[in-house]
């Protein structure tokens, strides 16, 4: 026991080495993305495997922003992702709260159905979804993507939100209702402020999922006007060549909203907001 607790310098070094290795491993693809984005086109193949290119350029970014439809793709993706994240989170929060707090007829059935929807590989249902969307006349519209993404993300988001609500002691709402709140007031004034970390996490998760979704976007969108970002990236692949530099530059730009989003919500993700509510 003692030997374990008094960590030797060797163990500490080992621990940090392992962590460093893991971080390097996880971040390397991102580094590579950024590296190729700033490497001049003619150097990509000549010194393709060098860790640091001998010359830097921002030409790729310039081309992507000014000479392609990138800005339009970017805007489309933002609309779809924010729309999906917002709608999904609202529905999932309501459903998660109901699952967490109430017992009602059919609750188990609904939960089972939601789990079943998660069991099918996406490829299996892509054809029926296409037919439905086409029949509704929603092909080539951002609305179709928002609807489909929302439908697919609700089960997971609901279970996520339910676990956050489960973490908030029921006593708090009881106390609120004794103090004079209706159930809805207790939800709004007591539970909701405490669920912000959960809402933030769910928003972030769904936003990222919608942001990077390719399969449905590829199937349901053909027109250049309605293309989302992942589909747009494919336009850098032409029949005879791949424009690596521009593709990577676009990829780096695509990271920006996700990063901003997580910087914005990370303070809500910090746990410990509920400490002090009950016994300590």
């Amino acid at each position, binding site marked *: 026991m003692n030997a374990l607790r008094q960590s030797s310098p060797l163990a500490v070094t080992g621990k940090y080495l392992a962590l460093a290795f893991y971080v390097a491993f996880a971040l390397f693809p991102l580094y590579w993305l950024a590296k190729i984005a700033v490497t001049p086109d003619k150097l990509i193949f000549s010194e393709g495997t060098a860790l640091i290119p001998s010359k830097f350029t921002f030409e790729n970014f310039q081309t992507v922003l000014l000479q392609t439809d990138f800005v339009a793709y970017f805007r489309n993706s933002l609309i779809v992702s924010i729309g999906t994240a917002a709608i999904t989170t609202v529905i999932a929060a309501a459903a998660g709260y109901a699952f967490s707090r109430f017992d009602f007829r059919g609750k188990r059935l609904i939960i089972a159905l939601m789990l079943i929807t998660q069991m099918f590989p996406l490829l299996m249902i892509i054809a029926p979804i296409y037919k439905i969307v086409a029949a509704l006349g929603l092909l080539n519209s951002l609305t179709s993507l928002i609807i489909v993404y929302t439908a697919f993300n609700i089960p997971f988001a609901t279970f996520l939100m339910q676990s956050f609500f489960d973490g908030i*002691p029921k*006593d*708090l709402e*009881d*106390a*609120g*209702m*004794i*103090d*004079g*709140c*209706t159930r809805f*007031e207790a939800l709004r*004034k*007591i539970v909701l*402020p*405490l669920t912000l970390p959960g809402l933030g996490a769910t928003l972030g998760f769904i936003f990222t999922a919608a942001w990077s979704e390719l399969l449905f976007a590829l199937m349901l969108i053909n027109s250049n006007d309605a293309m989302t970002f992942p589909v747009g990236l494919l336009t850098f692949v032409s029949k005879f060549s791949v424009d690596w530099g521009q593709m990577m530059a676009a990829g780096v730009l695509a990271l920006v909203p996700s990063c901003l989003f997580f910087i914005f919500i990370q303070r809500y993700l910090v746990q*410990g*907001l*509920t*400490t*002090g*509510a*009950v*016994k*300590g």
Partner: protein
Amino acid sequence: MAGIELNNIAKSYGSVEVLRDINLTIEDGEFIVLVGPSGCGKSTLLRMIAGLEPITGGEFHVDGRRMNEVPPRDRDMAMVFQSYALYPHMDVSRNMGFSLEIRKAQKEERSRKVGDAARTLGLTSLTERLPRALSGGQRQRVAMGRAIVRDPSAFLFDEPLSNLDAALRVEMRLEIARLHQRLNATMIYVTHDQVEALTLADRIVVLNAGDIQQVGTPLDLYERPSNKFVAQFIGSPTMNILGVDRAETGVKLKDGTILDVGSRGEQKRAHELGVRPEHLDVVPEEAAHMKGVAELVEHLGSDTNIHASVPGVGPVLVRQHGHFPLKTGDAVNIAVDLEKAHLFGPDGVRLAA
């Protein structure tokens, strides 16, 4: 201020019955303690009074008005939770004033009432803090403050002291007693701790497995328990229960000793003898009813608890006042205070003297 009446109150979850036929009238200003082992339904009963659990049977009246379906916010009752249930995102003064905030009270009124309550409870210097920055005892005070600020018609306490350490528990118990004296409000207090029950209550309600066993003043329950359950639940250390057979002039212990307990109602039904450790005495051999050996002697300073083993009778606990010079293995001669012994029938009901 409120008189509360429970008529045939029952509670079941589906087919599981957790409370049956609860009848209780609580006078205005009375301090009632609901006590019983865990799972006996005492917290459920309190939550039904608060309006947090639906009442599935019977009638619940406050000041003559039927309240069965009235939502908690309209019952004018304040509750102190075992977990304190302080709102983690509000500071102490907002926690205490939340009920007034919801009722849209004037700001001056709110801060005056919160200030008064904070002063009473010694929280004035902490009003800006969040609950997580408070100690357990301080959180408990804030929870009480939140109830006081409302000036409700009744206070409900759900095991409010069970999360505190022993010393703090005694202190807060006194504080609650003082609060009751000062406010003279109706209070209903749930606990599993019989010391809290005996020290705080005007009347105690003993519950077991969903039934009321007995309602009475602390002394009533101590001196005249209605059955074996109450007898063993109230009083510390626990009452000795010894098997007996009836005899012509009293009862006969299992080792053959006759105890002349005088004539009692249905004495022929006597099945067990109950006698509290403090009603047993270590005496010279010739005055003894039972002769045994001390198996364990606990010296508590104010008292000495002697766990004796009496051949043919079983283990017997004797409590002697002050320090009693006795060691493990010593012989003990025990006399029973026959006046204060109880007889129980085969069904556990106490036979009246």
